[in-house]
């Protein structure tokens, strides 16, 4: 602290140099080159003048949680925004763990900001509730200016709103609707888009279940020569032959489906665009249909096989032909053998996602990923920056391998599936420590295990070696409250924490929250919850909202040997910093906790 004292004086002297100090225009230009939001944040604290110039020159703002700040406050500070991103429901909503009526409504934001933000041309909403009316307000105010509209995993609107967008937003270059839940009132919206827009570059309604007419896609391809990326809901690939032939510039395509498997003759006429380097969807593609993409294998950079019908052997055969992959997404049917082929073939791989396949009785898929596959990939694909893997078995050694060889790892997520009774090597304390110590670039870390998967000592390592990690998801880790406290003491930079299925008490959660200086958001499900959330109040402080889903009534009488409540699977805690104060639109099932 003492060391900082001379700094302001030096700045003051420097600013007073020459006639009237540094010109405002110069400072404006300099700040224009500062892109990192945290650097911006720091610069705006220098003095009132810098604060004002930062506000005027800021082009993009991301609001990490839509209840953290009021729209009016954002508007008051950043009047010249060109791009705004908003996040709504907790991430757990993607997995069906948050009820639909949680909130996260886009309406207040659109109503307050659409008209006054004169420069706004890009809007990105994630996991929010968006109505047709919200989109209508947005289009009326900004339709002529809008270039990017991203509704990511949103719900609540219909294709009627899309028709309005298609008719009114003729400058739209990106329309992103991936994994939205959209009421389908007909496919006219796509026809309108094809007729009215000639500058579209990216169209994404992947995983939306919307019906489309192939003729409208062909029209779109003819009118939008700039179309580079199309990711759509499932449509039989044989109906898209015309579109694919017309789209000369297309580089990314996802959504073609093989509804008539076993009849290869129907698909052998399919020719993909010459510049294609991303391929996804391919729903129901099996061994007999794989030859459709063999001619393009060597040029593919991104491949999404999560929705195919491929066996482990099929994966091996196909991936062996794809030496230039940067991104690969598969289900765990790929197996360890498939991952060994990945390790041998895909030396440039940067992102790998291994999703969990079908494991219901009678539907189980062959394959399964374990330390063998993970180790092979760690050794063979050293450029990896992102791994998300659902594994059946795991060892400390595999995690050590990742730490040793994957120095560029930025985002690591591991889920240990619960079907297999015996795991080779638990707890994973030493492997986790090695990984965290070696992967110094890590920013996001997720570890979802089972009881006994990580001891209190291991949880302490996670905190101690958390380094610059800003987001963590931890499931079934630790043995007692002590583990959580030790974890929290080490997390200097953690901003967002999600915990699930842990054995911690409310008191420990509260103490841990207070220990982490950078934490601004925490979500917990499955902990030793009291009926009233009594001990959660220990974390009360200014600008800190605490929201609580009470445990089910039947668990009220269950008490463990030490007198503490049992772990309740229903109870949830959501706590976060907010300049806006308490939510005005809480659903009835959510209790807000606050000092009397």
């Amino acid at each position, binding site marked *: 602290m003492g060391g900082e004292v001379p700094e302001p004086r030096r700045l003051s002297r420097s600013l007073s140099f020459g006639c009237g100090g540094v010109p405002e225009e110069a400072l404006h230009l300099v700040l224009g080159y500062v892109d990192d939001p945290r650097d911006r944040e720091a610069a705006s604290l220098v003095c009132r003048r810098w604060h004002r110039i930062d506000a005027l020159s800021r082009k993009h703002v991301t609001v990490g949680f839509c209840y953290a700040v009021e729209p009016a406050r954002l508007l008051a500070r950043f009047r010249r925004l060109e791009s705004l991103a908003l996040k709504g429901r907790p991430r757990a909503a993607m997995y069906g763990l948050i009820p639909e009526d949680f909130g996260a409504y886009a309406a207040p934001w659109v109503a307050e900001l659409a008209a006054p933000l004169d420069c706004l041309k890009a809007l990105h909403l994630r996991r929010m509730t968006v109505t047709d009316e919200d989109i209508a307000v947005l289009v009326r105010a900004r339709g002529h200016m809008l270039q990017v509209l991203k509704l990511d995993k949103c719900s609540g609107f219909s294709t009627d709103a899309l028709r309005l967008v298609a008719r009114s937003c003729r400058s739209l270059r990106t329309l992103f609707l991936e994994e939205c839940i959209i009421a389908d009132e007909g496919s006219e919206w796509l026809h309108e888009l094809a007729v009215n827009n000639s500058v579209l570059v990216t169209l994404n309604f992947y995983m939306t279940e919307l019906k489309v007419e192939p003729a409208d896609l062909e029209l779109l391809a003819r009118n939008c020569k700039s179309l580079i990326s199309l990711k759509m809901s499932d449509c039989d690939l044989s109906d898209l032959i015309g579109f694919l032939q017309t789209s000369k510039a297309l580089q990314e395509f996802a959504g073609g489906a093989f509804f008539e498997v076993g009849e290869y003759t129907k698909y052998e006429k399919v020719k993909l665009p010459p510049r294609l380097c991303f391929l996804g969807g391919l729903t129901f593609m099996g061994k007999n249909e794989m030859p459709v993409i063999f001619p393009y294998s060597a040029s593919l950079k991104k491949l999404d096989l999560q929705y195919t019908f491929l066996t482990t052997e099929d994966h091996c055969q196909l991936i062996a032909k794809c030496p230039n992959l940067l991104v690969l997404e598969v289900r765990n049917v790929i197996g*360890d053998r498939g991952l060994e082929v990945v390790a041998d073939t895909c030396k440039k791989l940067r992102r790998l996602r291994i999703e969990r396949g079908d494991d*219901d009785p*009678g539907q189980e898929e062959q394959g399964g990923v374990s*330390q063998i596959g993970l180790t092979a990939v760690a050794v063979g694909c050293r450029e990896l920056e992102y791994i998300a893997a659902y594994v059946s078995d795991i060892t400390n050694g595999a995690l050590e391998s990742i730490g040793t060889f994957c120095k560029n790892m930025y985002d690591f997520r591991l889920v240990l599936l619960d079907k297999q009774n015996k795991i080779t090597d638990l707890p994973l304390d030493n492997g986790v420590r090695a990984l965290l110590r070696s992967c110094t670039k890590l920013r996001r870390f997720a570890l979802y295990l*089972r009881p006994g998967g990580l001891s209190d000592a291991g949880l302490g390592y996670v905190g101690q070696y958390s380094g610059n990690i800003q987001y963590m998801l931890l499931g079934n880790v630790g043995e007692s409250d002590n583990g959580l406290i030790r974890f929290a003491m080490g997390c200097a930079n953690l901003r967002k924490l999600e915990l699930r299925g842990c054995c911690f008490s409310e008191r420990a959660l509260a103490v841990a929250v207070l220990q982490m200086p950078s934490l601004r958001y925490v979500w917990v499900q499955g902990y030793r919850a009291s009926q009233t959330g009594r001990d959660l109040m220990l974390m009360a402080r200014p600008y800190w909202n605490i929201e609580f889903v009470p445990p089910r009534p039947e668990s009220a009488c269950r008490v463990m040997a030490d007198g503490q409540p049992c772990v309740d699977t229903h109870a949830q805690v959501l706590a976060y910093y907010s300049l806006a104060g308490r939510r005005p639109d809480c659903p009835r099932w959510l209790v807000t906790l606050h000092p009397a």
Partner: protein
Amino acid sequence: MDLLERNIKTETEETRKEQERKEEEAEAEAEAGERKTQEPPQQGQGLSLSLANGSGRSGMLPMSNVSANPSQLTIFYGGSVCVYDSVPPEKAQAIMLIAAAAAAAAATKSSAAPTVKPPMVPAATVAPAAVVSPVLTRSPSLQSTSVATGQPQVVAEPSSICKLQADLPIARRHSLQRFLEKRRDRVVSKAPYSTAKSSDGMESPRIEVTAEGKAQ
């Protein structure tokens, strides 16, 4: 004894091929032999790595510089001794890590006691390789078996830990869940189905996860 000597005297070219094949099969215990330039961290190492110590030692081995001199790699496996020249330290460590992972899996396999399917023995052009290959070619089978046992249908015991686990199932992303449901419908309606080898029975699909999600 004569066989061992012949193995040790294997020529460099064959040594390289052997090394590549061994890397792919990833089934060996490895030991770094004497280095031309002695390095202090290596002095404490024993002559061979036992299975129990494999993981620990692999993790603790220091990462040498890429510029370090390549050295000799000796592998003891199945009664055979193979010596490789000019092995970079980094590659040696990679081999040992892969071996440790495979050894751990093999340990799991032996405890589960499944039946190992006899693999086809490939024809070999060199006599020493022919002697070695029957043992080495079991590696793919071992891995296959290990992976197969990776998904056993084990009935969970009604202990409190398993109960907690069952109460809070690992959730699945909406989009993947929808695909798997469509896949089940498709498998049922298309029976008998030629392409999907994984579909054995025609049991009615369960939607436990979905129901659980809605119950929230």
